[in-house]
């Protein structure tokens, strides 16, 4: 089974995010950069499929130079090779442009299955993976917490409101990983050492035949006009005292009379 995993490097969710002076971007110095948490599930699932079915796991990621660290992490977990799309002209691309670039790279890679995280925790767009599937003309199954492959058919258990839906499709398919799919392994020290020797190709937009006029911050369809901190909440009202019954009565009274939500 030839599997490609789409991976993105993002700021750690512990990071303090500050708005930069331009008011439309964030400060990136002092940020800790990690593999998008949902992509860890995707890499892990690819490795498990390879363990039972054989084949190759290729990591595909677009980003600046430091993205290499995240690709190497995936290789250290056990992936076989990496492709890094590194081109300043692609920086700041919106989800559609990003997906077009990834799809262009995928046209040259034979695949049975593409796995991605269900969203990236920086942009929170949920968009790139489905757009990649659209541009490749393959089915998408999003928010998957379990899957079974038999022959050329995959069955994915998709989270839906109130339960799961079991969706079936013939390969090739793209599915996106949701929390609960698996517990990702940690890269072992031998894995980290082996990763240094695994092939990692670097591509530019020209290599992929992508028109630079469609990519990058200047060509975004979705334009950020302003970034603001979240709306401030009013100061907390602490319910004083140490008698639970009295505190409870006071709280419910305030929720009823003041907040008017009970």
């Amino acid at each position, binding site marked *: 089974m030839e599997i490609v995993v789409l991976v993105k490097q993002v700021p750690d*969710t*512990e990071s303090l*995010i500050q*708005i930069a002076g331009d008011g439309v971007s*964030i400060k990136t110095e002092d940020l800790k950069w990690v593999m998008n*948490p*949902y992509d860890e599930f995707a890499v892990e699932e690819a490795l498990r499929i390879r363990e039972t079915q054989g084949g190759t796991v290729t990591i595909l990621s677009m980003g600046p130079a430091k993205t290499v660290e995240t690709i190497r992490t995936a290789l250290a977990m056990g992936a076989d090779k990496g492709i890094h799309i590194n081109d300043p002209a692609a920086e700041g691309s919106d*989800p*559609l442009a990003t997906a077009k670039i990834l799809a262009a790279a995928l046209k040259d890679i034979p695949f049975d299955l593409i796995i991605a995280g269900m969203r990236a*925790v920086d942009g*929170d*767009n*949920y*968009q790139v*993976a*489905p*757009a990649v*599937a*659209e*541009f490749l003309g393959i089915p*998408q199954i*999003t*928010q998957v917490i379990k899957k079974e492959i038999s022959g050329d058919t995959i*069955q994915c*258990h998709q*989270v*839906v*409101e*109130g*339960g799961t*839906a079991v*969706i*079936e*499709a013939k390969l090739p398919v793209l599915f996106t990983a949701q*929390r*609960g799919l698996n517990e990702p392994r940690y890269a072992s020290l031998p894995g980290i050492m082996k990763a240094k020797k695994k092939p990692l190709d670097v591509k530019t937009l020209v290599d992929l035949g992508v028109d630079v006029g469609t990519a990058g911050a200047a060509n975004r*369809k*979705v*334009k950020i*006009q302003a*970034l*603001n*901190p*979240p709306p401030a*909440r009013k100061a*907390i*009202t*602490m*319910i004083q005292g*140490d008698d*639970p*019954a009295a*505190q*409870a009565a006071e*709280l*419910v009274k305030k*929720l009823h009379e003041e*907040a008017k*939500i*009970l």
Partner: protein
Amino acid sequence: MAQGIFVITEQREGTFRKVSFEALSEGRRLADAKNVPLVAVLCGSGVEALAGDLEKYGPDRILVADDPALAEYTTDAFTNVIAEAVKAQDPELILIGASITGKDLSARLAARLDAGLAMDCVGVRLDGGDFVFTRPMYGGKVVANVTIDGTPKIAALRPNVMTITEAPRSAAVEKLAVQAGDVKTKVAERKLEATDKVELTEADIVVSGGRGTTGDFSVLEDLANALGGAVGASRTAVDEGWRPHSDQVGQTGKVVSPNLYVACGISGAIQHLAGMSTSKVIVAINKDPEAPIFSKADYGIVGDLFKVVPAVTEEVKKLK
């Protein structure tokens, strides 16, 4: 020139998802402000009669795509049918609820139409003639105001945020000729939990528990029942195996936006806050007066949740 506002509604077995009414209400407000038509889109099988349910929210027209191929949601069939309707009618703006289906569909539709998509919007307004969409990023640590170039513009709206307003008028109902096209996925089975359980992302009230529960959610469940709400959990509670993944509220869990969020024994890690910060009222109950949750809550009680929560349940019952 592209004109008008489409609202793609979502229904299952004859019941609309609440966010569809929120999207229609928002669409009506924007359509009035821009003096353009509001068009509801209804897809399904044997659903013509449901068009009447939508008139309450004021669409000028209702497009009905009624076909056995649309009995179950599939990305391909719905994208094919809706994309055709969009190309034929050329709306400027498409609104859709950012439910799980809405996220799946809007992402594919945007790619099909080469359209900009603002995902998980908590606000839409007009600035001059331009739509400005407000959406959280970085797990809600910043809020972005974005505009979209070109048409159609697509906005997926976070559930439980926009106000539902009734603005009834009679709508012209049009049946679309349905070409489902090549549908590459099939729904083999639906496994739904007990239907009396309130879905977390749609609940008006959420009672949530963390490490402080030490795994015992019984008093939280009693409070949630008394309030008619849903029970959520922090990542700790899920990682410990006390609650299922589907109950997790947080940056890598579900994002909820209820009227009331009661956090019990939850310290308030940044990632948890990302999942509930747009709640209208937040109550925190924690033994630790230094817990970070108190800096984000509207009301706080320092105390033992096993004593405080049952007392709150008693008070709630007295109120009803």
